[in-house]
């Protein structure tokens, strides 16, 4: 049986999610025995022509050239899996999506003619069909290995879509909100990190994006009880998954509350 061909593609991103593949130090060489690493410029000069059985795609779409390139990647890929917050939600680059309505309204370059960029950062699924989305900023190494194993075995990956709160309970963390009144996005954020932030005495900041049944309105009320003002609520939802629908609505609600407060004043 021929080995499945794996390709790794980069769009606008920090390299961290594809680095996660290289951070599988114990599994990297065995993995290379199971799949043919056919296109992975960060790791090798060698290029094996497509089509590819599995493509991992990191990064968001932010340039006219990348609008074209993602179509070619899709056409050359039997299965296309997006990895990380940039690829699945537009990532931190989606902060530009708010530029027109907020403070960097008239941002210009020294030489704008040298640069081609879009005014929005969009996830891969906004442009092509995506077979699976792996969340996180960055993705979790164990989840990446699970996704790759599932691809090799031809099954669905076992990736939970419940909240970080489940992981906190499982890890035995004391709830930072209940015990210390620390604002925490854990209740609305998808699990996967292992409830890392609460284990380090800080509130979750939502880097895995919304879980599957989030109640952000209720959580926003709790964040205010825990001492956040509307600007802080807006900003805590507007980081690495700012364009995810649930976080987007929560930040817009905080923005409109803030505007109303200003009018009152």
């Amino acid at each position, binding site marked *: 049986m021929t080995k499945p061909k794996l390709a790794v593609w980069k769009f606008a991103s920090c390299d961290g999610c594809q680095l996660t593949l290289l951070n599988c130090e114990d599994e990297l060489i065995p993995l290379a025995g199971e799949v043919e690493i056919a296109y992975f410029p960060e790791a090798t000069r060698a290029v094996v022509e497509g089509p590819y059985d599995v493509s991992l795609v990191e990064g968001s779409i932010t340039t006219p050239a990348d609008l074209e390139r993602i179509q070619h990647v899709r056409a050359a890929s039997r299965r296309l899996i997006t990895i990380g917050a940039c690829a699945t939600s537009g990532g931190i680059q989606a902060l530009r999506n708010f530029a027109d309505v907020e403070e*960097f309204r008239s941002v210009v370059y020294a030489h704008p003619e040298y640069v081609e960029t879009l005014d929005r950062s969009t996830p891969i699924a906004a442009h092509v069909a995506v077979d699976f989305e792996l969340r996180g900023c960055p993705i979790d190494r164990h989840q990446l290995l699970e996704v790759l194993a599932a691809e090799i075995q031809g099954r669905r990956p076992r990736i939970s879509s419940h909240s970080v709160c489940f992981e906190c309970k499982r890890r035995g963390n004391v709830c930072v909100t209940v015990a210390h009144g620390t604002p925490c996005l854990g209740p609305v954020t998808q699990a996967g990190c292992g409830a890392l932030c609460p284990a380090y005495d800080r509130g979750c900041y939502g880097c895995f994006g919304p879980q599957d049944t989030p109640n952000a309105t209720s959580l926003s009320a709790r964040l205010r009880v825990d001492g956040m003002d509307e600007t802080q609520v807006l900003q805590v939802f507007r980081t690495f998954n700012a364009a995810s629908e649930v976080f987007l609505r929560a930040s817009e609600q905080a923005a409109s509350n803030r505007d109303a407060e200003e009018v009152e004043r």
Partner: protein
Amino acid sequence: MNHRLTDGGQVMHVSTLARVEGEGAMHIELRDGRVTDVQLRIYEPPRFYEAFLRGRAWTEPPDITARICGICPVAYQMSACWAIEDACGVSVPEAIRLMRRLLYCGEWIESHALHVFLLHAPDFLGYDGAIDLAADHPSVVEIGLRLKKAGNQLMTVVGGRSIHPINVRVGGFHRMPLTSELRALRPVLEQAREDALATVRLVSGFDFPEMEQPYEYVALRPEAGYPIEEGRVVTSEGNGFEVRDFPAHIDEFQVPHSHALHARLDGGARGPYVVGPLARYTLNHDRLGDLAAEAAREAGLGAVCRNPFRSIVVRAVELVEAVSEALRIIDGWSDGVPPSVPVPPCAGEGFGASEAPRGILFHRYVLDDDGTIRDAQIVPPTSQNQAGVEADLRALVETWVDLDDHALQHRCEHAIRNYDPCISCATHFLDLTVDRS
């Protein structure tokens, strides 16, 4: 891709540089054996970090700027913390500086091991990448992966995770790691120390093309120890300055072929300057610990290293230093240190710099009295080294113009990888000015 021009010229073009972090291309034009144009083209999509930071809270840069780079997030977190604390007039206690240094050692180990073994060694040993290399030399790749894993484990204990650590905050850390957690790393780091020494022996035996480059070297130099998390700026021509004077000495400018700004020192009057391992070593080799200093001597490094191809040897020596430092800090650590100090917001301007694995990383912030960020400037190492890379390519192509196209192209790619360019880092920051009229 190589092709001849109708006027007899020759073009060598590599559209996707491999084994670098991020997306870049190389374009070289030759006429009559002379290089007429050299471009390190950085086409990675621009990412607007400085713009995103405006209007955010003073507490946010460590988490936000970490996302500039998955390979050296700690460098961004540390330079950001120093700059914000400087703006707010806060200096952190020695214990917090030491814990920052320990976290940073983890990043150096992880990043240098990645570059030495997975990205750079294949050039010297004649492979396309580490997977092929592992087929013929499994023990070499095993050493590299074990070292890399040790760095990642150290970062995970101190920072929570190795990519975009969550434990760093302005003022220190959210939670101090326990002595017991740190001491548990000892066996891993002792093995890493052996592996790092083996790395120096391995790479010092590589064949290095002859090349001496005359650049002004720029690195940090702290009051004591090898420069990692802080220091004042020193240069090989004796033109040192304080970190706060960085913008007065280093100016950035845009060139058409790169999404990363180029930089020049003192107006560029003394030619390109270079940051990174070669500069750090040349300006601070007297600060290496005994083990790393001995390893450097055995590797034949001397007091000054001006051959960019030998940067791999310096990285290996720095691996020994980073592992030794980590062990030293862990052995001296005791519990009971408060994880952070308060950093109340304050109107002002602050400056911070640290030695990212690839060289000096500078941050500057202007804050309002409520801590809102009004302006941010970030100068990463790879953008500073672009002029040096291009000058190396120019010199190299003219020296080796008789090589066949394939060999010459490979040597040029190798020369770019000498700098371990992090293109993702370099491209985050096109100069943005806000027109509020």
